């Protein structure tokens, strides 16, 4: 395993990746989606409760009840439309995947994130496994995922002591012949009781978080045929790692 802290400056970086913090946009999106779905749900609940009360009347106004039931149907369809339109906007386009070397990708990501980390007086240490097999991934997707994990790690170190202000980014051989890329910090880590919900949408320990960052990262990982996992870092902090199957060349028969 080689260790060096100054990534070399070379590759041209895709413009889309230039320091996009998606957090604010995501928070707004989540709020918008929640509102679009909560409105019809709210109307449905109220119409239904009104129906129950009207039916308790010895001479219920059946026409009014019928119109409430029609409204319930309409509002359920409205909620369905809202969800459909979100799906269309977020999109489920198949992503192009190619054979890639994770070490090169890690070096690119390090280059991208370094200015941000320096501003926060954080250092980045690379730990790459030199003898690493290729993986079949969408580079942009995995870069975005790693950037998100690095930013999470930086957030976790906001109040950290001088000696702990370091993030480790690296690659290694994993289980089942998989290849792994990891991001480690020495922050507070994730409490045991919260680990189960860590990747759930809308789960956040941050007051301002939309709780979508890790859920999206997890789904990016899945779209690459990989898995995003958490484990506590020793002696302190968090480690998130993406486990990817090794690239298999298709054999012509």
């Amino acid at each position, binding site marked *: 395993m080689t260790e060096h802290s100054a990534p070399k400056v070379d590759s041209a970086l895709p413009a889309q990746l230039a320091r996009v913090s998606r957090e604010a946009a995501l928070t707004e999106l989540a709020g918008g989606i929640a*509102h679009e779905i909560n409105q019809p*749900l*709210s*109307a449905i609940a*109220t119409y239904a409760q*009104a129906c129950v009360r009207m039916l308790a009347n010895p001479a219920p106004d059946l026409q*009014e009840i019928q119109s409430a039931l029609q409204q319930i149907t309409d*509002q359920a369809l*409205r909620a369905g439309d809202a969800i459909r339109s979100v799906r269309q906007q977020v999109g489920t386009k198949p992503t192009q995947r190619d054979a890639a070397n994770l070490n090169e990708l890690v070096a690119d990501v390090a280059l991208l994130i370094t200015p941000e980390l320096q501003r926060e007086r954080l250092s980045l240490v690379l730990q790459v496994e030199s003898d690493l097999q290729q993986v079949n991934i969408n580079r942009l997707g995995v870069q975005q995922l790693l950037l998100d994990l690095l930013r999470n790690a930086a957030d976790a170190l906001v109040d950290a002591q001088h000696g702990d202000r370091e993030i480790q980014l690296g690659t290694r051989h994993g289980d089942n012949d998989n290849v792994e890329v990891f991001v480690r910090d020495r922050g507070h880590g994730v409490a045991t009781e919260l680990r189960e919900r860590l990747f759930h949408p809308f789960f956040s320990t941050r007051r301002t978080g939309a709780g979508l960052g890790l859920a999206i990262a997890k789904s990016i990982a899945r779209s690459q045929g990989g898995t995003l996992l958490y484990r506590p870092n020793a002696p302190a902090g968090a480690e998130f790692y993406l486990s990817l199957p090794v690239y298999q060349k298709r054999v012509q028969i």
Partner: protein
Amino acid sequence: MKAAVSTVFVVDDDLAVRSSLGMLLRSVGLPVMGYSSASDFLTHYEVHQPGCLVLDVRMPGMSGLELQQQLNLKGAMIPVIFITGHGDVPMAVEAMQLGAFDFVQKPVRDQDLLDRIQKALVLDLDNRNKLQQHDSQRKRLTTLTPRERQVMDLMTKGRPNKLMAADLDLSQRTIEIHRAHVMQKMQANSLAQLVRIAIDLT
């Protein structure tokens, strides 16, 4: 002045939310008026109309919070119950600080909302009664002669008749007559009640 029937005024820009609330409230026999915007409500509402306001905190145009501020400025004391979406808790807190009566979250549990509305309507009538009482007491006060007014002031300070007579250079008998007039005109049954009225009027 219109017949004073307590009405629940529902202000929500979402037609379905508004009409479902209207249906729910009518199903328990409450008179309801619906408005699609805060400004629509403001143009139609007169402060003497009793009732309570059920208000979506987040609306395009004038927000629920702004409407509440406008009502405060108008001196309208109608109690406001805010309905909030799930992400609006900080807004709800602000609303409470501005004097909102209560808030409920969407989707609403009907019994929670109805309980709060009942409480708000009771509070509103209570406030209006108090205000009316206050007004009529103020009117009664104007029927006192200047001399009676002087006597009332001294009475409420606990001045004994004998000293009052000396203060005002009148006989004790005359003071007693003024006292009787004050009690009668102010419709007070006891000195304690008169003191209470005097405090209310200051």
